[in-house]
């Protein structure tokens, strides 16, 4: 039974010359799991937003969309809200209530459910998701992963037949994102909810997908069972977002059946030798932290428990670790935003306190915080670059200057923010989760910029969950756990030694390549 039928759908945004979607036609059966891939700005979000009427953008639409055989436009508001659920990218902003319980009840309350119906739905969903013990908890005390699961749970309370997800895991760490995907799989399997998910990182998704769709430049370039779709080589842009086994398959000529998972890919490809760590000379220590202890209040728990960290000029260091292990706090202490109660931070051999009158932040140290948009405090990107020498930047951002910071895509925003940080010409650069919401192509650009900086002797410390980015550009990696650094090593040795904080390629090749 078809739950969704899209026929010759074209859409042009208001005030735009070119259509954002052109002649898209497909149909989805009830209970299917559909994964949508494609480069940023290709039309994935637009498609999902057109199916969820409440989110539909302004513009001209041609063609038809049938939900359960009924045109979308003839559904009542109530039907549309109740039967089509939606989860978007940002876990933080889509939660409206201050308590977990309130958030779960939101949909039921909006639709005026009876007390019995509301409690029954919430009881079932919160037991399934394990929220039953957290109902009274404040939503801002949840981790990012829990927040996104809460958004999913509250979308399911009204028992929708179709669930739309727009890059739901792009801001989660790998552990949380794996949890999210497996929960999504369970919902699809056990509750029979039809799932349509648009995502950049597809490594955990393909095995669960009944259908794989590619959308590039507003056109649907492929739609079908993943193995059928991948029996032909996708375009380069789409391929870069595919999981490691698929990329390796096509890199090696694409003979035989395309493996979809790390498990299927194991042993399929031969690697000549284990790549060795190149001998690299680093300069003097740029950042020396010794015995850092930090907590927010006298009565609260220690967040840093004696961290020692040395990063040298020309070194790119990645710091991995789960949520809440103290990574961000460590960067904040190193940047002088937070003050540790014990231990010392030296930047280029000098104590932080010996830098006076903003000397530290002009030409010595700079940092890109988690929310890159906080770099821009004006209505255009350009105004934040007023006094900067644009030609010295490693990336040409002249095209972004007249735009509003909120109109940039995830990748563009991160690059523009990085450039603004670099405009202070730091010799020590601290980055906090710099690749959130980026597709593979944008990451490649980002990695190149970082390598270029390191080549000029800049020390880079990156706190991240992104092992693929680390594989592209890191020299050394450290693992943080429970407020301390537990191991540090060359990026290759580090990835080989890890089961989880490593790349799919490293897992698949048994550590031959990362």
């Amino acid at each position, binding site marked *: 039974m078809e739950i969704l039928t899209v026929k010759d759908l074209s859409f042009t945004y208001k005030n735009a010359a070119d259509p954002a979607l052109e002649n898209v036609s497909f149909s989805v059966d009830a209970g299917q799991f559909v994964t949508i891939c494609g480069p940023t700005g290709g039309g994935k979000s637009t498609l999902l937003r057109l199916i969820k009427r409440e989110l539909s953008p302004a513009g001209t639409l041609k063609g038809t969309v049938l939900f359960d055989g009924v045109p979308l436009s003839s559904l009542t508001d109530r039907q549309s809200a109740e039967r089509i*659920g939606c989860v978007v990218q940002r876990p933080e902003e889509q939660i409206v209530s201050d308590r977990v319980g309130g958030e779960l009840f939101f*949909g039921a*309350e909006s639709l005026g459910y009876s007390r019995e119906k509301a409690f029954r739905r919430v009881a079932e969903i919160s037991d399934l998701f394990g929220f039953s013990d957290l109902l009274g908890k404040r939503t801002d005390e949840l981790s990012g992963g829990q927040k996104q699961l809460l958004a999913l749970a509250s979308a399911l309370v009204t028992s929708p037949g179709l669930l739309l997800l727009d890059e739901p895991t792009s801001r989660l760490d790998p552990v949380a994102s794996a949890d999210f995907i497996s929960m999504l799989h369970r919902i699809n399997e056990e509750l029979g909810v039809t799932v349509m998910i648009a995502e950049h990182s597809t490594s955990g998704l393909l095995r669960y997908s009944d259908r794989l769709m590619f959308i590039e430049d507003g056109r649907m370039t492929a739609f079908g069972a993943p193995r059928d779709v991948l029996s032909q080589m996708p375009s380069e842009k789409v391929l870069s977002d595919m999981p490691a086994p698929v990329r390796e398959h096509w890199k090696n000529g694409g003979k035989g059946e395309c493996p979809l998972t790390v498990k299927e890919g194991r042993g399929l490809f031969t690697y000549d030798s284990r790549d060795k760590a190149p001998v690299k000379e680093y300069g003097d220590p740029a950042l020396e932290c010794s015995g850092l202890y930090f907590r927010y209040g006298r009565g609260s728990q220690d967040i840093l428990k004696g961290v020692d960290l040395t990063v040298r000029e020309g070194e790119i260091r990645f710091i991995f670790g789960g949520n809440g292990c103290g990574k961000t706090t460590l960067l904040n202490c190193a940047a002088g935003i937070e003050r540790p109660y014990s231990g010392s931070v030296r930047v280029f051999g000098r104590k932080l306190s010996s830098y006076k009158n903003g000397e530290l932040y002009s030409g010595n140290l700079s940092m890109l915080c988690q929310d890159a948009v906080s770099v821009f405090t004006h209505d255009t990107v350009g105004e934040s670059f007023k006094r900067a020498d644009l030609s010295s930047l490693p990336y040409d951002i002249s095209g972004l200057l007249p735009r509003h910071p909120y109109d940039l895509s995830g990748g563009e925003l991160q690059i523009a923010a990085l450039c603004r*940080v670099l405009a202070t010409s730091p010799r020590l650069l601290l980055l906090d989760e710099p690749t959130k919401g980026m597709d593979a192509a944008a990451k490649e650009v980002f990695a190149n910029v970082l390598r270029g900086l390191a080549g000029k002797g800049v020390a880079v410390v990156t706190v991240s969950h992104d092992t693929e980015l680390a594989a592209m550009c890191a020299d050394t990696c450290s693992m943080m756990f429970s407020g301390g650094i537990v191991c540090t090593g060359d990026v290759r040795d580090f990835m080989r030694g890890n089961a989880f904080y490593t790349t799919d390629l490293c897992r698949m090749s048994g550590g031959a390549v990362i």
Partner: protein
Amino acid sequence: MIWFDKCNPFPALFYFISVTVLAALFNNPYHTAVTLAASIVMFVFMRGRARVALSFSVVFVLTFIVNPLVSKKGATPLIFIGNDPITLESIIYGLNSAAMILSVMFLFFTFTRLLDSEKLLYLLSPFSASAAMTVSAVLRFAPLYLRQARLISAQQKVIGAEGGRSIPERLRSGVRVFSALSTWALENGIIAADSMACRGYGTGKRTFFSFFGFRPSDLVFLLLSAALTAGAAVPAAFSRLSFMYYPVIVLPETGTAFAVSAASYTLLVFLPLIFEITDRIKWKYLQSKI
């Protein structure tokens, strides 16, 4: 105050309103003393810090001192400061009002400790489910804004855009952070609004659910507080029960009416403590049987 904390918010609200209104109306040393005693015991039960109690006492001392100095009413001058008399009546009046303010502060401490945001929403919900939802959203977003403001300000600092330390420069960077925060809040609001629309906000009449039940003991508490409130207030209609301070102190008429009213009020004020202690004894008893 485990029993009182788990009590349905409506009886609790009724109790607090009733006690504060009656205490203010009677404005009499007997009622004030009873209220003060009960409120201090509750403060101890709520594990209020000594520091908080000390800061309350400062207000008590100030109010007590200020009234006789400022008020020139009263017929019995004790001493003169310059040409201004300090009267016996104004000292007693000051003592009573200071004690009353102190007891209201202790009561209010307990009340705010007990009334968390969930209870507040529950209290609001019968009047307007949308208002309850709005309060919940405000409670959600206020800490979020604060955190974002800190983040923007930290980010501006590390890219050297905070400017210097002079006051105009600081003001300018403060304004910039505020403007960036407003833009962020608007963007954030759009996503939140979308997320609400997605889940059917505005498609019909809202309802509100919460996990608060009405236990039998809550009902008993509510009925008792209502009866005692009536018992304290009604006799006042038949007899002059108020205390006159000026120009000379006139004691209220004593008799059955006063006895009923005073006894009812005393019971009312101590009612949550009575329930609390009964509950504790009951649990001790239950446990001893296991």
